[in-house]
Protein backbone atom coordinates (compact mmCIF):
# COMPACT_ATOMS: atom_id res chain seq x y z
CA UNK A 1 0.00 0.00 0.00
CA UNK A 2 2.64 2.47 1.06
CA UNK A 3 4.88 1.45 -1.79
CA UNK A 4 2.10 2.05 -4.25
CA UNK A 5 1.50 5.56 -2.85
CA UNK A 6 5.18 6.37 -3.07
CA UNK A 7 5.38 5.19 -6.65
CA UNK A 8 2.32 7.17 -7.59
CA UNK A 9 3.60 10.36 -6.04
CA UNK A 10 6.99 9.89 -7.71
CA UNK A 11 5.28 9.47 -11.05
CA UNK A 12 3.22 12.54 -10.33
CA UNK A 13 6.28 14.65 -9.62
CA UNK A 14 7.99 13.28 -12.69
CA UNK A 15 5.10 14.19 -14.97
CA UNK A 16 5.00 17.69 -13.56
CA UNK A 17 8.72 18.12 -14.09
CA UNK A 18 8.51 16.89 -17.68
CA UNK A 19 5.44 18.89 -18.58
CA UNK A 20 6.80 22.08 -17.06
CA UNK A 21 10.04 21.55 -18.93
CA UNK A 22 8.10 21.29 -22.16
CA UNK A 23 5.64 24.03 -21.38
CA UNK A 24 8.06 26.75 -20.43
CA UNK A 25 9.97 28.28 -23.27
CA UNK A 26 10.75 31.76 -21.91
CA UNK A 27 14.04 33.43 -21.08
CA UNK A 28 14.05 32.87 -17.35
CA UNK A 29 13.40 29.14 -16.96
CA UNK A 30 15.96 27.37 -19.17
CA UNK A 31 18.87 27.95 -16.84
CA UNK A 32 17.25 25.89 -14.08
CA UNK A 33 16.02 23.25 -16.52
CA UNK A 34 19.38 22.70 -18.09
CA UNK A 35 20.85 22.15 -14.67
CA UNK A 36 18.15 19.68 -13.84
CA UNK A 37 18.25 17.79 -17.09
CA UNK A 38 21.98 17.60 -17.53
CA UNK A 39 22.62 16.72 -13.94
CA UNK A 40 22.03 13.07 -14.67
CA UNK A 41 24.61 12.74 -17.35
CA UNK A 42 27.28 15.13 -16.15
CA UNK A 43 30.65 13.86 -15.21
CA UNK A 44 32.77 15.61 -12.67
CA UNK A 45 34.94 17.18 -15.33
CA UNK A 46 31.91 18.49 -17.17
CA UNK A 47 30.60 19.96 -13.95
CA UNK A 48 33.90 21.62 -13.34
CA UNK A 49 34.09 23.02 -16.84
CA UNK A 50 30.54 24.38 -16.78
CA UNK A 51 31.36 26.02 -13.48
CA UNK A 52 34.55 27.37 -14.99
CA UNK A 53 32.48 29.03 -17.69
CA UNK A 54 30.66 31.08 -15.06
CA UNK A 55 33.74 32.31 -13.24
CA UNK A 56 35.10 35.81 -13.56
CA UNK A 57 38.52 34.48 -14.48
CA UNK A 58 37.07 32.83 -17.56
CA UNK A 59 35.01 35.88 -18.41
CA UNK A 60 38.15 37.98 -18.35
CA UNK A 61 40.34 35.47 -20.20
CA UNK A 62 37.82 34.37 -22.78
CA UNK A 63 37.32 37.42 -24.90
CA UNK A 64 34.97 35.77 -27.37
CA UNK A 65 32.24 34.79 -24.95
CA UNK A 66 29.81 37.28 -26.45
CA UNK A 67 29.17 39.02 -23.15
CA UNK A 68 26.88 42.00 -23.47
CA UNK A 69 27.42 45.44 -22.01
CA UNK A 70 25.22 46.45 -19.09
CA UNK A 71 22.88 49.30 -19.89
CA UNK A 72 20.41 50.80 -17.43
CA UNK A 73 18.12 51.55 -20.36
CA UNK A 74 17.49 47.83 -20.85
CA UNK A 75 18.48 45.08 -23.28
CA UNK A 76 17.66 47.14 -26.36
CA UNK A 77 20.65 49.40 -25.69
CA UNK A 78 23.07 46.53 -25.11
CA UNK A 79 25.79 45.51 -27.52
CA UNK A 80 28.40 42.78 -27.43
CA UNK A 81 31.63 43.75 -25.69
CA UNK A 82 34.83 44.02 -27.64
CA UNK A 83 37.74 41.85 -26.53
CA UNK A 84 39.39 44.86 -24.95
CA UNK A 85 36.34 45.84 -22.93
CA UNK A 86 35.76 42.40 -21.53
CA UNK A 87 39.37 41.68 -20.62
CA UNK A 88 42.16 44.23 -20.35
CA UNK A 89 39.76 47.15 -20.06
CA UNK A 90 38.25 45.80 -16.86
CA UNK A 91 41.65 45.37 -15.32
CA UNK A 92 42.66 48.90 -16.23
CA UNK A 93 39.43 50.25 -14.79
CA UNK A 94 39.91 48.35 -11.56
CA UNK A 95 43.39 49.84 -11.28
CA UNK A 96 41.92 53.32 -11.89
CA UNK A 97 39.36 52.63 -9.18
CA UNK A 98 42.14 51.78 -6.76
CA UNK A 99 43.90 55.01 -7.66
CA UNK A 100 40.68 56.88 -6.88
CA UNK A 101 40.48 55.07 -3.53
CA UNK A 102 44.03 56.12 -2.82
CA UNK A 103 43.34 59.75 -3.70
CA UNK A 104 40.21 59.78 -1.56
CA UNK A 105 41.64 58.06 1.51
CA UNK A 106 45.30 58.99 1.61
CA UNK A 107 45.09 62.41 -0.03
CA UNK A 108 41.61 63.31 1.21
CA UNK A 109 40.43 64.48 -2.23
CA UNK A 110 36.63 64.86 -2.03
CA UNK A 111 36.33 61.47 -0.30
CA UNK A 112 32.59 61.90 0.16
CA UNK A 113 32.11 61.55 -3.55
CA UNK A 114 35.15 59.72 -4.80
CA UNK A 115 34.58 56.74 -2.48
CA UNK A 116 31.02 55.99 -3.67
CA UNK A 117 31.91 56.77 -7.29
CA UNK A 118 34.99 54.57 -7.25
CA UNK A 119 33.20 51.74 -5.50
CA UNK A 120 30.39 51.97 -8.02
CA UNK A 121 33.07 51.72 -10.68
CA UNK A 122 34.46 48.62 -9.04
CA UNK A 123 31.03 46.97 -8.99
CA UNK A 124 30.31 48.00 -12.56
CA UNK A 125 33.41 46.23 -13.81
CA UNK A 126 32.54 42.85 -12.35
CA UNK A 127 32.03 40.46 -15.26
CA UNK A 128 28.74 38.59 -15.80
CA UNK A 129 26.99 40.15 -12.77
CA UNK A 130 25.44 42.95 -14.86
CA UNK A 131 25.12 45.26 -11.90
CA UNK A 132 24.93 48.23 -14.23
CA UNK A 133 22.09 46.63 -16.17
CA UNK A 134 18.40 47.40 -15.96
CA UNK A 135 17.85 45.08 -13.00
CA UNK A 136 21.24 45.39 -11.38
CA UNK A 137 21.78 47.45 -8.27
CA UNK A 138 23.67 50.23 -10.01
CA UNK A 139 21.28 50.26 -12.95
CA UNK A 140 18.31 50.60 -10.63
CA UNK A 141 19.96 53.50 -8.83
CA UNK A 142 20.86 55.08 -12.14
CA UNK A 143 17.32 54.88 -13.43
CA UNK A 144 15.94 56.05 -10.11
CA UNK A 145 17.67 59.39 -9.96
CA UNK A 146 20.32 60.07 -12.54
CA UNK A 147 18.62 59.23 -15.81
CA UNK A 148 15.84 61.61 -14.80
CA UNK A 149 18.18 64.24 -13.24
CA UNK A 150 16.55 63.96 -9.84
CA UNK A 151 19.59 63.40 -7.63
CA UNK A 152 21.58 66.44 -8.79
CA UNK A 153 18.59 68.59 -7.91
CA UNK A 154 18.35 67.09 -4.43
CA UNK A 155 22.03 67.80 -3.93
CA UNK A 156 21.44 71.36 -5.06
CA UNK A 157 18.67 71.65 -2.50
CA UNK A 158 21.05 70.59 0.23
CA UNK A 159 23.73 72.96 -1.02
CA UNK A 160 21.13 75.73 -0.92
CA UNK A 161 20.31 74.88 2.67
CA UNK A 162 23.99 75.09 3.53
CA UNK A 163 24.69 78.35 1.72
CA UNK A 164 24.87 81.65 3.53
CA UNK A 165 24.27 84.55 1.16
CA UNK A 166 25.31 87.05 3.82
CA UNK A 167 28.75 87.84 2.37
CA UNK A 168 27.30 88.33 -1.11
CA UNK A 169 24.50 90.57 0.17
CA UNK A 170 27.00 92.60 2.14
CA UNK A 171 29.14 93.24 -0.93
CA UNK A 172 26.94 92.75 -4.01
CA UNK A 173 29.48 93.83 -6.60
CA UNK A 174 31.57 90.72 -5.97
CA UNK A 175 28.85 88.82 -7.85
CA UNK A 176 30.56 90.02 -11.04
CA UNK A 177 33.49 87.78 -10.19
CA UNK A 178 31.20 84.79 -10.04
CA UNK A 179 30.15 85.68 -13.56
CA UNK A 180 33.64 86.27 -14.91
CA UNK A 181 34.79 82.84 -13.77
CA UNK A 182 32.12 81.27 -15.97
CA UNK A 183 34.36 82.17 -18.88
CA UNK A 184 35.96 78.85 -18.07
CA UNK A 185 32.84 77.18 -19.39
CA UNK A 186 32.47 79.08 -22.61
CA UNK A 187 36.16 79.44 -23.36
CA UNK A 188 36.74 75.73 -23.09
CA UNK A 189 33.64 75.14 -25.21
CA UNK A 190 35.59 76.61 -28.10
CA UNK A 191 38.55 74.42 -27.23
CA UNK A 192 36.40 71.31 -27.13
CA UNK A 193 34.86 72.08 -30.49
CA UNK A 194 38.30 72.79 -31.92
CA UNK A 195 39.58 69.33 -31.01
CA UNK A 196 36.63 67.69 -32.69
CA UNK A 197 33.72 67.27 -30.28
CA UNK A 198 30.32 68.19 -31.63
CA UNK A 199 28.51 71.16 -30.10
CA UNK A 200 26.35 69.23 -27.66
CA UNK A 201 29.19 67.11 -26.37
CA UNK A 202 31.44 70.14 -26.16
CA UNK A 203 28.85 72.02 -24.10
CA UNK A 204 28.45 69.11 -21.72
CA UNK A 205 32.19 68.84 -21.25
CA UNK A 206 32.88 72.52 -20.84
CA UNK A 207 30.38 72.83 -17.99
CA UNK A 208 33.12 71.21 -15.90
CA UNK A 209 34.55 74.74 -15.85
CA UNK A 210 31.60 75.69 -13.68
CA UNK A 211 33.28 73.58 -11.00
CA UNK A 212 29.94 72.36 -9.84
CA UNK A 213 29.33 68.61 -9.62
CA UNK A 214 25.53 68.53 -9.66
CA UNK A 215 25.32 71.04 -12.50
CA UNK A 216 27.81 69.02 -14.55
CA UNK A 217 25.82 65.84 -14.04
CA UNK A 218 22.58 67.62 -14.83
CA UNK A 219 23.89 68.99 -18.11
CA UNK A 220 25.84 65.90 -19.11
CA UNK A 221 22.73 63.83 -18.68
CA UNK A 222 20.74 66.11 -20.96
CA UNK A 223 23.31 66.73 -23.65
CA UNK A 224 25.74 63.81 -23.65
CA UNK A 225 24.58 60.88 -21.49
CA UNK A 226 27.28 58.62 -22.94
CA UNK A 227 29.97 60.76 -21.41
CA UNK A 228 28.33 61.22 -18.03
CA UNK A 229 30.80 59.06 -16.15
CA UNK A 230 33.89 60.73 -17.51
CA UNK A 231 32.43 64.21 -17.06
CA UNK A 232 31.36 63.57 -13.47
CA UNK A 233 34.68 62.02 -12.57
CA UNK A 234 36.55 64.90 -14.22
CA UNK A 235 34.38 67.49 -12.48
CA UNK A 236 34.80 65.97 -9.05
CA UNK A 237 38.46 65.22 -9.39
CA UNK A 238 39.23 68.77 -10.49
CA UNK A 239 37.12 70.11 -7.65
CA UNK A 240 39.19 67.97 -5.34
CA UNK A 241 42.31 69.36 -6.97
CA UNK A 242 41.32 72.99 -6.39
CA UNK A 243 44.07 73.47 -3.77
CA UNK A 244 46.60 72.23 -6.32
CA UNK A 245 45.36 73.86 -9.52
CA UNK A 246 44.33 77.31 -8.35
CA UNK A 247 47.21 78.77 -6.29
CA UNK A 248 49.84 78.82 -9.08
CA UNK A 249 47.39 80.54 -11.43
CA UNK A 250 46.44 83.02 -8.72
CA UNK A 251 50.08 83.86 -8.01
CA UNK A 252 51.03 84.12 -11.66
CA UNK A 253 48.32 86.66 -12.44
CA UNK A 254 48.68 89.00 -9.47
CA UNK A 255 51.46 91.11 -7.97
CA UNK A 256 52.64 90.66 -4.42
CA UNK A 257 51.23 94.08 -3.53
CA UNK A 258 47.80 93.10 -4.75
CA UNK A 259 47.80 89.85 -2.86
CA UNK A 260 48.55 91.74 0.33
CA UNK A 261 45.51 94.00 0.03
CA UNK A 262 43.35 94.01 3.11
CA UNK A 263 39.62 94.23 2.65
CA UNK A 264 37.29 96.10 4.96
CA UNK A 265 34.89 94.47 7.38
CA UNK A 266 31.63 93.37 5.79
CA UNK A 267 28.48 95.07 6.97
CA UNK A 268 26.00 93.09 9.00
CA UNK A 269 23.21 91.80 6.79
CA UNK A 270 19.62 92.18 7.78
CA UNK A 271 17.73 88.95 8.39
CA UNK A 272 14.92 89.93 6.09
CA UNK A 273 17.38 90.51 3.25
CA UNK A 274 18.58 86.96 3.53
CA UNK A 275 15.03 85.66 3.62
CA UNK A 276 13.95 87.59 0.54
CA UNK A 277 17.06 86.82 -1.49
CA UNK A 278 16.30 83.23 -2.61
CA UNK A 279 12.91 84.40 -3.82
CA UNK A 280 14.55 87.26 -5.70
CA UNK A 281 16.96 84.90 -7.44
CA UNK A 282 14.16 82.57 -8.38
CA UNK A 283 12.04 85.42 -9.75
CA UNK A 284 14.96 86.67 -11.81
CA UNK A 285 15.68 83.27 -13.29
CA UNK A 286 11.99 82.81 -13.92
CA UNK A 287 11.94 86.00 -15.97
CA UNK A 288 15.26 85.70 -17.74
CA UNK A 289 15.96 82.00 -18.04
CA UNK A 290 13.25 79.51 -17.04
CA UNK A 291 15.53 76.78 -18.38
CA UNK A 292 17.74 77.20 -15.32
CA UNK A 293 14.91 77.10 -12.79
CA UNK A 294 15.15 73.39 -11.96
CA UNK A 295 18.63 74.00 -10.58
CA UNK A 296 18.04 77.45 -9.14
CA UNK A 297 14.61 76.49 -7.87
CA UNK A 298 15.96 73.58 -5.83
CA UNK A 299 18.76 75.79 -4.58
CA UNK A 300 16.41 78.62 -3.66
CA UNK A 301 14.06 76.24 -1.87
CA UNK A 302 16.83 74.88 0.30
CA UNK A 303 18.08 78.35 1.11
CA UNK A 304 14.60 79.69 1.79
CA UNK A 305 13.86 76.83 4.18
CA UNK A 306 17.07 77.63 6.03
CA UNK A 307 16.54 81.38 6.22
CA UNK A 308 12.87 81.16 7.14
CA UNK A 309 14.04 79.97 10.54
CA UNK A 310 10.81 78.13 11.29
CA UNK A 311 11.51 74.81 9.58
CA UNK A 312 14.84 73.94 11.09
CA UNK A 313 13.93 70.27 10.94
CA UNK A 314 13.48 70.40 7.18
CA UNK A 315 16.56 72.45 6.47
CA UNK A 316 18.52 70.24 8.83
CA UNK A 317 17.39 67.15 6.91
CA UNK A 318 18.24 68.74 3.58
CA UNK A 319 21.74 69.71 4.57
CA UNK A 320 22.54 66.52 6.45
CA UNK A 321 20.65 63.26 6.11
CA UNK A 322 19.06 63.88 2.73
CA UNK A 323 22.20 65.13 1.05
CA UNK A 324 24.14 62.23 2.56
CA UNK A 325 21.71 59.63 1.27
CA UNK A 326 21.60 61.20 -2.17
CA UNK A 327 25.37 61.44 -2.25
CA UNK A 328 25.62 57.69 -1.74
CA UNK A 329 23.18 57.01 -4.56
CA UNK A 330 24.60 59.66 -6.86
CA UNK A 331 28.10 58.33 -6.35
CA UNK A 332 27.17 54.73 -7.03
CA UNK A 333 25.04 55.68 -10.01
CA UNK A 334 27.79 57.75 -11.56
CA UNK A 335 30.21 54.98 -10.74
CA UNK A 336 28.22 52.63 -12.96
CA UNK A 337 29.47 54.72 -15.85
CA UNK A 338 33.01 53.76 -14.97
CA UNK A 339 32.47 50.41 -16.68
CA UNK A 340 35.29 49.77 -19.12
CA UNK A 341 33.00 49.84 -22.14
CA UNK A 342 31.86 53.37 -21.28
CA UNK A 343 34.89 54.98 -19.69
CA UNK A 344 37.81 53.66 -21.72
CA UNK A 345 37.01 55.52 -24.89
CA UNK A 346 39.03 58.11 -26.75
CA UNK A 347 36.72 60.92 -25.63
CA UNK A 348 37.66 60.48 -21.98
CA UNK A 349 41.14 61.80 -22.61
CA UNK A 350 39.70 64.87 -24.32
CA UNK A 351 37.25 65.38 -21.46
CA UNK A 352 40.04 65.32 -18.90
CA UNK A 353 42.11 67.83 -20.85
CA UNK A 354 39.23 70.19 -21.64
CA UNK A 355 38.04 69.96 -18.04
CA UNK A 356 41.41 71.06 -16.72
CA UNK A 357 41.52 73.85 -19.29
CA UNK A 358 38.03 74.97 -18.30
CA UNK A 359 38.91 75.03 -14.64
CA UNK A 360 42.12 76.98 -15.14
CA UNK A 361 40.54 79.46 -17.52
CA UNK A 362 37.72 80.12 -15.05
CA UNK A 363 40.18 80.78 -12.26
CA UNK A 364 42.34 83.00 -14.45
CA UNK A 365 39.53 85.17 -15.76
CA UNK A 366 38.06 85.49 -12.27
CA UNK A 367 41.37 86.74 -10.92
CA UNK A 368 41.89 89.13 -13.85
CA UNK A 369 38.39 90.51 -13.41
CA UNK A 370 39.03 91.09 -9.72
CA UNK A 371 42.24 92.91 -10.65
CA UNK A 372 40.33 95.11 -13.04
CA UNK A 373 37.69 95.85 -10.42
CA UNK A 374 40.41 96.73 -7.95
CA UNK A 375 41.87 99.24 -10.43
CA UNK A 376 38.57 101.06 -10.55
CA UNK A 377 37.69 100.94 -6.88
CA UNK A 378 38.61 103.70 -4.44
CA UNK A 379 41.18 103.41 -1.69
CA UNK A 380 38.72 102.47 1.06
CA UNK A 381 37.02 99.66 -0.82
CA UNK A 382 39.95 97.86 -2.34
CA UNK A 383 39.45 94.39 -3.70
CA UNK A 384 42.04 91.70 -3.25
CA UNK A 385 42.27 90.07 -6.70
CA UNK A 386 42.70 86.67 -5.10
CA UNK A 387 38.98 86.50 -4.33
CA UNK A 388 38.30 86.35 -8.07
CA UNK A 389 39.52 82.78 -8.03
CA UNK A 390 36.60 81.86 -5.80
CA UNK A 391 34.26 82.77 -8.64
CA UNK A 392 34.43 79.21 -9.91
CA UNK A 393 31.84 77.67 -7.64
CA UNK A 394 33.47 74.70 -5.85
CA UNK A 395 31.87 75.86 -2.59
CA UNK A 396 33.52 76.29 -0.13
CA UNK A 397 36.80 74.77 -1.22
CA UNK A 398 37.94 77.57 -3.50
CA UNK A 399 37.05 80.24 -0.93
CA UNK A 400 39.23 78.41 1.58
CA UNK A 401 42.07 78.23 -0.92
CA UNK A 402 41.80 81.98 -1.50
CA UNK A 403 41.91 82.59 2.22
CA UNK A 404 44.94 80.36 2.60
CA UNK A 405 46.92 82.01 -0.20
CA UNK A 406 45.95 85.42 1.16
CA UNK A 407 47.11 84.65 4.68
CA UNK A 408 50.38 83.26 3.35
CA UNK A 409 51.15 86.65 1.81
CA UNK A 410 50.06 88.57 4.85
CA UNK A 411 49.48 86.60 8.03
CA UNK A 412 46.26 87.59 9.72
CA UNK A 413 44.60 88.71 6.49
CA UNK A 414 41.41 86.66 6.49
CA UNK A 415 39.73 86.72 3.09
CA UNK A 416 37.39 83.79 3.68
CA UNK A 417 34.20 85.81 4.08
CA UNK A 418 35.07 88.10 1.18
CA UNK A 419 35.72 85.09 -1.00
CA UNK A 420 32.41 83.50 -0.08
CA UNK A 421 30.59 86.27 -2.00
CA UNK A 422 32.03 85.42 -5.42
CA UNK A 423 31.88 81.78 -4.44
CA UNK A 424 28.10 81.61 -4.02
CA UNK A 425 27.67 83.97 -6.98
CA UNK A 426 29.66 81.39 -8.93
CA UNK A 427 27.07 78.75 -8.07
CA UNK A 428 24.34 80.99 -9.43
CA UNK A 429 26.48 81.92 -12.42
CA UNK A 430 27.16 78.33 -13.39
CA UNK A 431 23.50 77.43 -13.02
CA UNK A 432 22.66 80.32 -15.34
CA UNK A 433 25.34 79.25 -17.80
CA UNK A 434 23.90 75.74 -17.68
CA UNK A 435 20.48 77.17 -18.40
CA UNK A 436 21.84 79.03 -21.42
CA UNK A 437 23.40 75.87 -22.83
CA UNK A 438 20.19 73.94 -22.28
CA UNK A 439 18.13 76.65 -23.93
CA UNK A 440 20.37 76.55 -27.01
CA UNK A 441 19.71 72.85 -27.56
CA UNK A 442 16.05 73.00 -26.65
Amino acid at each position, binding site marked *: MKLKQLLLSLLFIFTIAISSAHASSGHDAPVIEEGKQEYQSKTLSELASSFWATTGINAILDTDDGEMTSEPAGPSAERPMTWFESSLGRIIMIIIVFILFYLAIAKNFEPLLLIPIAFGGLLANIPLAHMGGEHGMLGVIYNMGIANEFFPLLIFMGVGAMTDFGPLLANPKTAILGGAAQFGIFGSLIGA*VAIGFDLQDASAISIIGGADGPTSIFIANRLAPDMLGAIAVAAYSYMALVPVIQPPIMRALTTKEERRIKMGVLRKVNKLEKLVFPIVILM*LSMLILPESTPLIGAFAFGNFAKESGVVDRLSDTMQNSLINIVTIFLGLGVGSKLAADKFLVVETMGIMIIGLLAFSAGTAVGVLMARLMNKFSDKDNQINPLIGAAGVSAVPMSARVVSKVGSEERPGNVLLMHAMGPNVAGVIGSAVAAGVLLSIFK
Partner: protein
Amino acid sequence: MEEVNLVAESFKFMFLGMGVVFIFLLVLIEVMKLQAKIITKYFPDEEPVTPVTKSSKDEEQKRVAAIIGAVSEFRKNKQNKV
Protein backbone atom coordinates in the same frame (compact mmCIF):
# COMPACT_ATOMS: atom_id res chain seq x y z
CA MET B 1 34.38 73.68 -43.85
CA GLU B 2 32.13 72.26 -41.18
CA GLU B 3 34.91 72.49 -38.62
CA VAL B 4 35.20 76.23 -39.17
CA ASN B 5 31.46 76.57 -38.84
CA LEU B 6 31.41 74.75 -35.54
CA VAL B 7 34.11 76.93 -34.04
CA ALA B 8 32.32 80.05 -35.20
CA GLU B 9 29.18 78.63 -33.66
CA SER B 10 30.91 78.06 -30.35
CA PHE B 11 32.10 81.67 -30.34
CA LYS B 12 28.49 82.72 -30.70
CA PHE B 13 27.62 80.45 -27.78
CA MET B 14 30.30 82.18 -25.76
CA PHE B 15 28.97 85.66 -26.45
CA LEU B 16 25.43 84.63 -25.70
CA GLY B 17 26.39 82.68 -22.60
CA MET B 18 28.71 85.21 -21.05
CA GLY B 19 26.27 87.96 -21.98
CA VAL B 20 23.36 86.28 -20.24
CA VAL B 21 25.44 85.38 -17.18
CA PHE B 22 26.65 88.96 -16.82
CA ILE B 23 23.26 90.49 -17.44
CA PHE B 24 21.74 88.15 -14.88
CA LEU B 25 24.35 88.97 -12.27
CA LEU B 26 24.31 92.72 -13.00
CA VAL B 27 20.56 92.77 -12.56
CA LEU B 28 21.01 90.70 -9.44
CA ILE B 29 23.52 93.20 -8.06
CA GLU B 30 21.17 96.11 -8.67
CA VAL B 31 18.31 94.21 -7.07
CA MET B 32 20.50 93.37 -4.07
CA LYS B 33 21.42 97.02 -3.64
CA LEU B 34 17.83 98.13 -3.98
CA GLN B 35 16.62 95.48 -1.59
CA ALA B 36 19.27 96.41 0.96
CA LYS B 37 18.19 100.05 0.74
CA ILE B 38 14.50 99.30 1.15
CA ILE B 39 14.88 96.75 3.89
CA THR B 40 17.40 98.63 6.00
CA LYS B 41 15.21 101.74 5.73
CA TYR B 42 11.76 100.31 6.37
CA PHE B 43 12.36 96.99 8.13
CA PRO B 44 15.52 97.34 10.18
CA ASP B 45 16.44 94.45 12.48
CA GLU B 46 15.51 95.24 16.04
CA GLU B 47 18.70 95.96 17.92
CA PRO B 48 19.44 93.06 20.22
CA VAL B 49 18.96 94.08 23.84
CA THR B 50 22.42 94.92 25.05
CA PRO B 51 23.56 93.13 28.18
CA VAL B 52 24.91 96.39 29.65
CA THR B 53 21.43 97.66 30.46
CA LYS B 54 20.64 94.37 32.10
CA SER B 55 23.56 94.29 34.47
CA SER B 56 22.47 95.52 37.83
CA LYS B 57 24.63 97.14 40.46
CA ASP B 58 25.23 93.80 42.14
CA GLU B 59 26.72 92.30 39.00
CA GLU B 60 28.85 95.37 38.47
CA GLN B 61 30.22 95.02 41.99
CA LYS B 62 30.85 91.31 41.51
CA ARG B 63 32.77 92.06 38.36
CA VAL B 64 34.91 94.66 40.11
CA ALA B 65 35.56 92.23 42.95
CA ALA B 66 36.64 89.56 40.47
CA ILE B 67 39.00 91.94 38.73
CA ILE B 68 40.53 93.06 42.02
CA GLY B 69 40.97 89.44 43.06
CA ALA B 70 42.64 88.51 39.79
CA VAL B 71 44.99 91.46 39.92
CA SER B 72 46.06 90.79 43.48
CA GLU B 73 46.59 87.13 42.68
CA PHE B 74 48.73 88.12 39.70
CA ARG B 75 50.81 90.47 41.84
CA LYS B 76 51.31 87.81 44.49
CA ASN B 77 52.58 85.38 41.88
CA LYS B 78 54.92 87.98 40.51
CA GLN B 79 56.36 88.69 43.95
CA ASN B 80 56.87 85.00 44.57
CA LYS B 81 58.85 84.65 41.40
CA VAL B 82 61.07 87.61 42.20
